[in-house]
Every structure is written in C-alpha cells, then in structure tokens.
C-alpha cells in the first residue's frame, strides 16, 4: 500500500471546480438515470476507498451497508410513507450503526482475517435479507415511490432526481475529502503507513479505525439508500458479495488511495455493465475480467494513480 503521489495540491481546487461544473450540465448530454447510477456507485467506491486507500483496511463486506441502507430506505419511504430525504437519512443511520457493529467485531484483527470477518458478517446480512418477509426475499423490495423532496419537489422528474443525487454525492464526497485532509485523516494515514508507530505515539488506533469504518459504512449506506430511490427498488444484488467485489474492482481500477480514482473506476465499470449489455451480450463478464487482469498487470496504481505519477514525472506543476 505505497502512498500514491499526491496531485499537485495547488491545482486540486481548480480541477474539482471543473469537474463540479461538468456534473452540473451532464444530465443534458447523457441519460440522467445512467448518470445517477454512476454517482451512486461512485459514492459507494469513495466510501470504500476511505477505508482501503487511507486506513489500509480491506473490507470485503461493504455490500451489507449498501444493501441494508437500500432496504431500510425502501421500507421507510414505501411502507411508512416518509419523505425521500428521511428515507436516505434512515438508510445512512442504519448502515452507520451496522458499520459500527461490524467494525467493533472486525478491527481487532488485521489483514486477511479482517477481510474474512467482514465477509462472514456480510453473508449473514445477505441470508437475513433472503429470509425475512419484509425484504421480499428473491423478488426484492419493489415499487418504492420517489416521492416529493421535503414534500415539495417532485422527484419523478429525472432531472430533479439527478440534481438531488448530485447534491448527495457532492456532500458525501466533501465529507470524505475533509476527513482525509483533516488532522484525523493524517492519523489514519499514519496508521496505514506504520501502525505500531502510531500506537507508540500514543494514538488509540482501534478507536480511529472504528470511527473511519463507521464513516465509510454510513456513506456506503447513503449511496445504497439513494440508489433505492433512483431505481425504485432494493434487491438482493446489492447485499450479495458480488457487490463487495465490484467495489474493490472499481477502486483498484480507478486508483487506490487517490481521491478521484474511485469515481473514475465506478464510471468505467458501470458504463461497461450498461453499455456492453446491448452490444456484446454474454461477453460482458469476460471483458470485465480481462480489464481487471490488464489493470493489475499493467497499471497497478489504477487509472488516476498512473496519470498522477505521469504528471509528476513529466514535472508539470
């Protein structure tokens, strides 16, 4: 987990500003539902990257947070009839609590054991979702209304929904950005680089890890809850371990430990999944596998990571 070269800090606000503007006009050029899907997965991948890229914890159970929040949001909006923002809030809180519980159980172990414990716990959540009546089992939770934001703005309009998702994504991204660039984030990076040293400096490493894990889970939950509103359904796909694997793939492909990497990775994977579905049919999975192998073999820092080191080497500043 070598520290990736930071993008020239002075240029960062400019780059983020340009990207923000692109995000604002994007729904007029690209199909909004597709963009919303990318944003949901991008937030999910960013949340995951906070943990893997900046604390060095490989969680293999993040689907549990994505899925649980989706189900909770769906139930709150559809069955209790609350407004969508409360649904997203409920999903986020539920995922945060679940994350705290998972973290409390798992962070006492490191490396492969940590990954396995998170996977096992996530599988328990999966089986729970298959079994209990409220989630609809195999059929999933269907027919979740998008409703009216704050009881006023009609979200059944795709453009309105897009801007809500975009706002949520930006808030989530800002939280992650601030977390990384705060003293708290510095300590997380210190733990990633050398845990015994952080301990010897007097930091309560377990506590920091647990907080980071909970933030990551809660934000993954925000992504899951938002996704439920976009697609008006929550299904087993999101709690299945495939989703946990997909987020690892997105993060690695985009660039582990870079702030923009997960977004690029998520956009790539989601585009491939949706766009290739028409043209190549059954070859989608094979193509994704090949891309992953190429990425691991040829550019190990991921797309953004490679780009950053290229810029650094060429001396542009």
């Amino acid at each position, binding site marked *: 987990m070598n520290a990736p070269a930071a993008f020239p800090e002075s240029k960062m606000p400019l780059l983020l500003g340009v990207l923000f503007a692109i995000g604002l006009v994007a729904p007029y050029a690209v199909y909004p539902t597709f963009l919303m899907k990318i944003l949901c997965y991008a937030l999910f991948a960013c949340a995951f990257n906070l943990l893997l890229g900046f604390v060095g914890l490989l969680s293999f159970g993040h689907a549990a947070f994505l899925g649980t929040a989706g189900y909770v949001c769906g139930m709150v909006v559809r069955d209790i009839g609350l407004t969508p923002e409360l649904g997203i809030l409920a999903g986020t809180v539920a995922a945060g609590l679940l994350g705290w519980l998972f973290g409390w159980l798992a962070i006492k172990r490191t490396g492969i054991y940590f990954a396995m414990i998170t996977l096992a716990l996530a599988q328990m959540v999966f089986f729970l979702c*298959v079994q209990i009546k409220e989630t609809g089992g195999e059929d999933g939770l269907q027919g979740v209304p998008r409703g009216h934001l704050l009881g006023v703005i009609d979200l059944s309009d795709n453009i309105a929904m897009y801007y809500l998702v975009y706002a949520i994504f930006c808030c989530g991204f800002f939280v992650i950005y601030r977390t990384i660039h705060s003293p708290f984030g510095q300590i997380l990076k210190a733990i990633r680089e050398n845990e015994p040293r952080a301990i010897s400096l007097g930091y309560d490493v377990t506590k920091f890890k647990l907080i980071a894990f909970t933030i990551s889970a809660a934000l993954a939950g925000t992504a899951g809850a938002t996704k439920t509103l976009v697609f008006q*359904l929550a299904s087993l796909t999101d709690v299945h371990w495939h989703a946990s694997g997909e987020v690892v793939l997105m993060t690695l492909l985009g660039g582990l430990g870079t702030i923009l990497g997960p977004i690029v990775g998520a956009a790539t994977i989601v585009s491939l999944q949706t766009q290739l579905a028409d043209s190549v049919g059954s070859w*989608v999975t094979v193509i994704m596998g090949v891309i992953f192998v190429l990425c691991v073999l040829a550019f190990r820092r991921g797309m953004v990571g490679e780009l950053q080191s290229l810029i650094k080497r060429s001396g542009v500043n």
Partner: protein
Amino acid sequence: MKTKQLAITTCAAALATLSAGASAQISGGSVKIGVLTDLSGTYSDLAGSGAILATRMAIDDFIAKEKPTFKIEVVTADHQNKADIASNKAREWIERENVDTVTELVTTSTALAVMKVAKEKDRIAIMNGPASTPITNEQCNDITVHYTYDTYALANGTAKAVTQQGGKNWFFLTADYAFGHSLEKDSSAVVTANGGKVLGSVRHPFPGSDFSSFLLKAQASGAQVIGLANAGADTTNAIKQAAEFGITPTQSLAGLLMFITDVHSLGLKPTQGMFLTTGFYWDRNEETRAWSKRFFDKQKKMPTMVQAGQYSSIYHYLKAVKAAGSDDTSKVMAMMKKTPINDFFAKNGQIRDDGRMVHDMYLVQVKKPADSKYPWDYYTIKATIPAAEAFQPLALSRCPLIKK
C-alpha cells in the same frame, strides 16, 4: 401576459390534436420490441439468446405472412439477472428509443422491476421467463401479460397429476426462502386435496450444494414421491445426488420448476422417471415439431417453453398491433386480450384481466435412456392439463383488478 397565456393554450391544444391524430397510427413509423433477458447467467440456457432468436423468427414470419405496412425493430440487452440493470435499461429504452414493449424478463425480481417502469410509462410488458405468481396477483397491472407459465401451473399440475396417478405419499425437499416455502405450501395443499398425504419436508439452505443429509431424510421417510420445491442449480444438484444415493429408481422425484434444458444438461440417467409440467414440448405434434426444427437449425438446441412462448407472444402482439392499426398501448392491449391465441404453442389461449395467459399445460414423464430414440427425445406426455385447470382460478386471485 394574457396573450402569452392564450398562445400557450392554443399551442397545447394544437399539440394535443396532433398527437391524437398520430396515436391512431404507429408512433415513429415503426414498432420497437425490446428483449431484456439473461445472456450470461444461470438462465441464459432456458431463455437468453434462444429467446432473442425466437423473437426474430416471430418478426420474420409475421412480415412474410401478414405483410404489415409498419416497420418492426428489435433491441436486446443482457440484464445480468440484476433488477437495477433491468429497470435502468427498460427506462432508457422507453424514454430514449421509444420502445413499444419490453419482453421476456426471466427472473422475477427483474420482471417486477420492469413491469413497474413499463406501467409508469404506459408501455406493454410481456413476461415469458419469470415464474412467480405475484406478477398476476398482488403486483398485477392492466398492461402486463404473463404469457408462458407460472409456479402455480407447474406445481399444481405436477402435484395433482402425480397424486391422481397413484403417487399418494409425498415428501418435500424445500429451498429455505420465500419462493421455496410457497412452492411447498401450494403443492402440499394440492396433494392433500387429491387424497394424498404429505409425510414431511426438509428445508435446505439456499443456494445449496450438498444435499446428502436432506436426501437421506427424504429416503428414510419412505415416501413414494419426493417433491423438489426449489429451482435452478439447487434442483439439478438434488437430482444428481438423488441418483448417486440410489433414491431414484425406488422413489420418484417430482420437479416443481424444471425445464427441458435441465433434463438435457443432466442427461436421462439421473432424471429418468421424473414427473414435471411444461407449457410446451417440441415433439408433441407435427406443428410443434415443424417450428422446433426451424429453431433447432439456427440454435442447435431444441426450444424451451420460454423460447416457444416468446415466439408466440411476439407474434400475438404484432397481430394485435396490425388489427388495432396502432401501437397505442391500451388499444393493442385490448386487442391482445380480445383475440384468442391459436398457434403451435397454444390452442384457444386467452389473456385474462389479471394479465395471465391461460392455455393447456402438459404433464410429462422423463423417458428411460433405452426409450430415447433420437436426440432431444426426452419426454412422454402423460396428460394434457386443460387451460381451465392448469392456472390459478380467478376466484383465488389476489389481483386488485379482479372484481369479485
């Protein structure tokens, strides 16, 4: 301000007349059919590329025979058995490509997701692959058609016929989730109603791979028939292992959700003697054979009931469009429901108000390897289950559209 408002109203009125005029014909000059199916996962064999081929065959035949004045286009996609991909794709097709009907939709979660989108956007959805009954019950709507089969027809048909033919004592091997439970419950009721007895049941985790302890329990129960209340890989694994344990020659298995592709992949040895219900068997009569051979020439596999149903439903849809002279959803739907379906797939098939297409189903028994004379010669048809008995009666319907 006033004049502006007036101008807007006039414009709106003009637009309304224009669109009313256009809706009497074909929007965009062509009828666009979307086939959303599983091309890469577990169900690609029973639906998948075969369903796309069936769709194209239906369109080609329709053009050759009925000489329509409108153009017909097909778009296809792999939903990878994920409800969110399916719903995304369906929405995009309808909003951006003006697709008139979304069809096939194997796996219930994708079907339920897409029928919601289609209803919201006022488009017809035609289901051939998915099995679950909620499509025409709790979740039903007036412009979704469930065409080929459902779990009620399969479980009911098999359980009833097997019990009536002397398989009185049953034991269920059930996948431990909502789908398996309801399959077991429905079949048990049918068994008891026909004078049979359910000796017990055992639940296996879903998805399962090792069925040994469950199968031994089923064997020890001494039941004549072991009902498999599960689906897909669970069913095929259970059948394989039952044969290895020597259960099958002495006790018989009843598949409550099985396809000819399952029998084909397992082979006749472990499946021989099994009872199952199907909506279509290629070797039933001259008509089915003729169509299936055409299908086989291109696909190198015989069609499943889903693929045959896909052909039949697309042809029926196109005929309704032609008869209605429009691709307007409600007109086409009314025409589809009004016209009985008569082709190689169904005789006097009828689409009911709950969206269920009712037609004859067939109880079949898998042949012994020695009795199978040529490739794909797998079934002996034991009984024809008339349409009226095959599907859930409207009196039991939980669909709000059905007034009682």
